[in-house]
């Protein structure tokens, strides 16, 4: 018998600290598989965020740097520009990190078409700090700081990162995926690998938004949380390619997936 599935090499043999059923672990694995398959571990630098995945630096076999909250794209920019032809640089960021305190860094890295790869974990909540409302929390979503449900009149509307960044001329590639089923995990893997390949090819800024679960702070079983992604998140945050400049997809570019 041959091994058809095993732990990727780019993932260290360290148990994750994540809660049972949290999809951070699935996405970590997909990133590590992409690094393995592209053979880039020795020249890859990952930038960890502040949030539940703050300890991502303990899990990946490549070099890792911890950035101040939301500043991962700025750190990634510096690292990448120090050795642009050799280094492969990715950030791994939550929605509180990337879409709230780090919005400016996100937008400007995209506008500059910085040649980096961003893995964006949208779980519609601040996981690490105990389940406060995030900019991505859905209207009506109950969180620690919106006990009666998010009221857009008081708290505004969710920030749709892919849709927003697609308006910029800068970015090369923007796709929203999820990991709540086998088919979705396979599609997410393909997108993440492409986001790294784009950087290798010098194409520029690639961001993959992954609709993720936080069973603990959503107050659901892992299974129910996966269903909630289908029922609530995907209708609000449609999956798909929002921009792929090389393929001519995106606002102003036309293409079959013009949104």
């Amino acid at each position, binding site marked *: 018998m041959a091994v058809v599935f095993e732990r*990727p090499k780019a993932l260290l043999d360290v148990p994750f600290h994540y809660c049972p059923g949290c999809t951070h672990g699935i996405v970590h694995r997909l990133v590590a598989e992409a690094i393995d398959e592209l053979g880039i571990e020795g020249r890859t630098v990952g930038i960890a965020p502040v949030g539940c995945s703050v300890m991502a630096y303990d899990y990946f076999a490549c070099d890792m740097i911890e950035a101040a909250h939301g500043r991962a794209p700025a750190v990634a920019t510096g690292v990448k520009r120090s050795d642009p032809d050799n280094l492969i640089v990715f950030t791994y960021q939550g929605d509180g990190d990337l879409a709230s305190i780090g919005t400016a860094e996100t937008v400007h890295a995209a506008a500059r078409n910085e040649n980096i790869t961003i893995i964006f974990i949208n779980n519609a909540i601040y996981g690490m700090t105990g389940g406060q409302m995030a900019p991505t929390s859905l209207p009506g979503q109950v969180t620690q700081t919106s006990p009666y449900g998010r009221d857009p009149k008081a708290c505004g509307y969710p920030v749709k990162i892919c849709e927003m960044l697609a308006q910029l001329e800068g970015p090369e590639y923007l796709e929203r995926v999820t990991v709540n089923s086998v088919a979705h995990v396979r599609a997410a893997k393909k997108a993440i690998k492409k986001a790294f390949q784009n950087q290798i090819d010098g194409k520029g800024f690639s961001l993959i938004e992954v609709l993720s679960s936080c069973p603990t702070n959503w107050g659901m079983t892992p299974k129910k949380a996966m269903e909630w992604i289908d029922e609530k998140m995907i209708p609000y945050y449609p999956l798909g390619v929002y921009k792929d400049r090389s393929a001519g997809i995106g606002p102003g570019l036309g293409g079959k997936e013009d949104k």
Partner: protein
Amino acid sequence: MAKVTFRTDECKGCGLCIDACPKGILKLSEETINKKGHHPAECADPDACVGCASCALMCPDCIITVER
């Protein structure tokens, strides 16, 4: 012929592998409690495993190995 193996001590008993298995042969152990205090996943009918690795694709802790 196929074989699914779990690193039992690292299982958190989330059950996502159970829902992913098209053969419905995975379950949480009723007798065992692992070091972490969870009932770990196990295969109830090893002969029925087809080696599709669906369970491993959904495992958030990457503790499943599949051979075929």
